[in-house]
């Protein structure tokens, strides 16, 4: 088991290296560099001085030296300077990373709270009216574009009823660490979480429903029924146990999906998270920030998949490896 986890982690290292290399190359291929962004255009600086600064910053070194320096800095937490914000990228990310993580986690929990019971109902009483209703809801949420739905929610509950704030992640007047601060944070989370979750449920419901319908017909379920155990226990101990397995395993992956999928929701609700920053940075061509964000979300996907593999190997005895 330990060997498996260690090997799985070892596989991650080359994946991350490859990802960083691709990002580095792409960033280099972009027009302009740190010097041109920060200083160029300033009439007081001559072309020779520019070159000198470039030389000092190591921008004329061979690519592998630059790459290893960039990577080394990155690992130590120095992701470079944002030349739009004139701030270290790390500082820029610090608060937003927390916000996005909070939003993703909340979305994940809420979407499971909705999807798992609905998926179970639809699967267990498959072809009943409840099932048809749930499947209808599913089609609706798959067919509705995310931004339309989110805008609608924002308009109705935020603007029209004025129940929830229209943007931000916390009331500016709330003091950090106070009870009001926590309540305000939660209050700001409600709309983005709900609209994210309502749409994220469709996949889980569909998956769970289909898996239950399929598992119901398996031979071991016949064996369980032939044992004369109550129908409720046939479901909990046999069918659900098997059908929830892939859902549990998908958890690690799901959370990274939400992190990278937060772009729309955060933009619509002006929620200060990574997604919103990403959109801003692209439009202002703030490439240090963009590449740091791509690196982070890429790493999140890799870590998430690893997490999924490890969870699956823990919950499924067939994959448990000595």
């Amino acid at each position, binding site marked *: 088991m330990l*060997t498996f986890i*260690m*090997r799985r982690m*070892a596989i991650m290292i080359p994946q991350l290296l490859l990802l960083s290399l691709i990002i580095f190359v792409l960033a280099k291929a972009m027009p302009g560099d740190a010097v041109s962004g920060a200083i160029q255009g300033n009439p007081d600086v001559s072309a020779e001085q520019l070159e000198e600064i470039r030389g000092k910053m190591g921008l004329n070194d061979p690519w592998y030296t630059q790459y290893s320096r960039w990577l080394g800095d990155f690992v130590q937490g120095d992701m470079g300077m944002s030349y739009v914000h004139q701030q270290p990228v790390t500082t820029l990310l610090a608060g937003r990373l927390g916000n996005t993580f909070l939003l993703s986690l909340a979305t994940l929990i809420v979407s499971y709270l909705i999807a798992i019971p609905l998926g179970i109902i639809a699967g267990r009483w498959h072809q009943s009216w409840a099932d048809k209703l749930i499947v209808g809801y599913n089609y609706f949420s798959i067919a509705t574009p995310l931004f339309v739905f989110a805008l609608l929610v924002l308009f109705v509950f935020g603007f029209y009823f004025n129940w929830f704030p229209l943007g931000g992640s916390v009331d500016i007047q709330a003091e950090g660490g106070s009870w009001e601060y926590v309540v305000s944070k939660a209050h700001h989370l409600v709309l983005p979480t709900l609209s994210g979750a309502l749409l994220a449920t469709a996949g889980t419901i569909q998956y769970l429903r289909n898996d239950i319908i399929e598992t119901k017909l398996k031979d071991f379920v016949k064996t369980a029924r032939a044992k004369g155990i109550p129908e409720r226990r046939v479901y909990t101990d046999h069918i659900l146990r098997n059908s929830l397995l892939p859902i549990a395993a998908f958890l690690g992956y799901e959370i990274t999906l939400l992190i990278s999928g937060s772009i729309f929701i955060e933009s619509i609700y002006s929620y200060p998270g990574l997604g919103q920053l990403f959109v801003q940075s692209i439009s202002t061509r703030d490439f240090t920030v963009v590449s740091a964000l791509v690196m982070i979300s890429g790493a999140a996907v890799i870590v998430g998949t690893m997490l999924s593999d490890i969870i699956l190997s823990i919950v499924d005895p067939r994959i448990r490896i000595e």
Partner: protein
Amino acid sequence: MKKMSPLLSVQRLKVYFPIRGGFWHRAIDHTRATDDVSFEIMEGETYGLVGESGCGKTTTGRAIIGLHKATSGKILFDGIDLAKLRGKERRRRTKDIQMVFQDPYASLNGRKKVLDIVAEPLRNFERMSPQEEKRAVQTLLERVGLDADAAYRYPHQFSGGQRQRIGIARALTLNPKLIIADEPVSALDVSVQAQVLNFMQDIQKEFNLAYLFISHDLGVVQHICDRIGIMYRGRLVEEGLAEEVYSNPQHLYTKRLISAIPEMEPAQRLAKRRVRQSVQEQYEGAYDQFFDKDGKLFDLKKISKTHSVAVP
């Protein structure tokens, strides 16, 4: 049967599969699926390869047709060593060998028409106009006892026995000399099985086919095979004419296998049970004597002109 050079001669064939493990996922050991197996099949002969699941009989068949790579050994077909050939050259040489699979439900592509299924080998090897192709396929379908217009139907429109005939028609398209039949009737009901077995015997005479008949069903093998080889743990432990092996089994494993065949006389069941028990006791007692000091099963030794057995 007069002595002639064999159609297929498998010599010291080994097929090993790596077992991977440890941190680096390296091959740490091998499964010896087929471990030093030699046998010959004459033209027009039916050779039965018999054994229980995991004994290596299917691997052996698949290695001959090239679905598994031989680790070592020779597969001489018409005098040419197939084990050495690769790619196109091998495919050209093996067109005289065709395979029929166990499950007639799974082995035919359900989305293709019977015409396309049966014509596929033709398209790979021969240039034919669509008319010629159609005629060839319809002739074959009639040969295997199906209507000519069966060509325009899909596999799911046929019963299990008919599907197995389609599989056989497909194998026959290139006029092969050898058909490797891997459990061809195991998935079929008794009455359908009878149809397919009769039919396989008919086309054997008609096309002078040789069969490598791979099966676990000793009743069927006894019925259809001229010679049989008993496989156990990747090796042949006994080989001989079918009647020899059945009426006079020498290796204890063969005895055990034969004693396991259900007795069709209800009145004999107690006697059969006693035989089975005594063979089982002998088998358990003498189990260690099957192997040489390296833990390998012994090579076959001739005990008569046609009968060999793996003993020290």
